[in-house]
């Protein structure tokens, strides 16, 4: 039956950690990452993501993003960047009551050694102001080599909580 999800990796953060790495992509299927209740230790920091190559985060400046930031309190804005050392997708995470991020990624071509690694992303959360904020769009890692997972970290300080799960879509 199409549309099934098979769990590949998961990590639930209950005490602060510097980063979360999910690996196990080893087929040409589409993969999905579901994240909920992500809260940083520090207020007003940004969650960043990188692809992993053989389990290690790729820190080269080959990350491009384009998205539309939906905002509950003001005019929406475009969010874009090229040639960064991580995907700049999620902004201004807060750590007070109710402030959390919830995100869905779909991953494409990660297992290919000859294609770039692509993702689409959807986000809904409450930022540090606090306001409803969610970026919707796509991103690419412009390196034609296989990626086997994703690495998440904050721009400053640790991840206080959250569940990160990688699924294979079959």
């Amino acid at each position, binding site marked *: 039956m199409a549309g*099934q*999800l098979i769990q590949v990796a*998961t990590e639930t953060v209950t005490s602060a950690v510097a980063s979360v790495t999910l690996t196990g992509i080893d087929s040409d299927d589409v993969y999905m990452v*579901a994240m909920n209740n992500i809260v940083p230790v520090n207020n007003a920091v940004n969650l960043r993501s990188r692809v992993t190559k053989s389990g290690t985060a790729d820190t080269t400046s080959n990350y491009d993003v384009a998205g539309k930031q939906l905002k*509950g309190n003001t005019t929406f804005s475009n969010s874009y960047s090229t040639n960064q050392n991580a995907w700049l997708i999620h902004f201004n995470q807060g750590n007070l009551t109710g402030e959390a991020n*919830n995100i869905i990624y779909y991953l494409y071509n990660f297992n290919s050694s000859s294609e770039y690694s692509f993702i689409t992303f959807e986000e*809904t959360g*409450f930022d540090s102001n606090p306001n409803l904020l969610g970026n919707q769009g796509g991103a690419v890692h412009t390196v034609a080599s296989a990626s086997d997972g994703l690495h998440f970290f904050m721009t400053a300080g640790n991840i206080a909580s959250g569940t990160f*799960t990688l699924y294979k879509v079959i």
Partner: protein
Amino acid sequence: MSNLRLINETEIGTSVLSVSVTDVFSADFDIYKITLEGVTSTGAGGLDLRFINASGSVISASNYDRAGLQMRSYANFLEYRATNDTELQLYAYSLEGGGESSVGYVFNPYLSSSYTFSLNQVSSYVDSGGGTSWKNIGVLKQTASMTGFQLFNSSVNFDNGVIRTYGLRVDS
């Protein structure tokens, strides 16, 4: 076994102003996928969403924030937003023409320490214009357990279609 578990399937029926999907959120899951397929009506209107708490009460307090981008095939895009509203207005829209569909996710509804968040995207058709799609996000700013949701319209009856609720299982 798939980690995407079908919890509930609700047929909308004919000529109804609201439909409630109850007892679908629980401690078994933190993330839920909700699909809405094939909804029609005789007039244009939005389907709004309210959550239902563990006591069975539909939450109508002014605790909802929302933001939506309408992408129209026939005109410029439009932005919709609100804070402290009484529902997630326009969770789905443009019922006329038939076949409206939506897919989205609800996060942390049963987790009493967290707000309840949603996101969804909609594909629909407006008789007076053409194809249109939406990207929506929303939040219910209450730290309480929600166990279900209600879709409704205050004036336009809607017909047909099915609502499916899935849980995304996490095996530790």
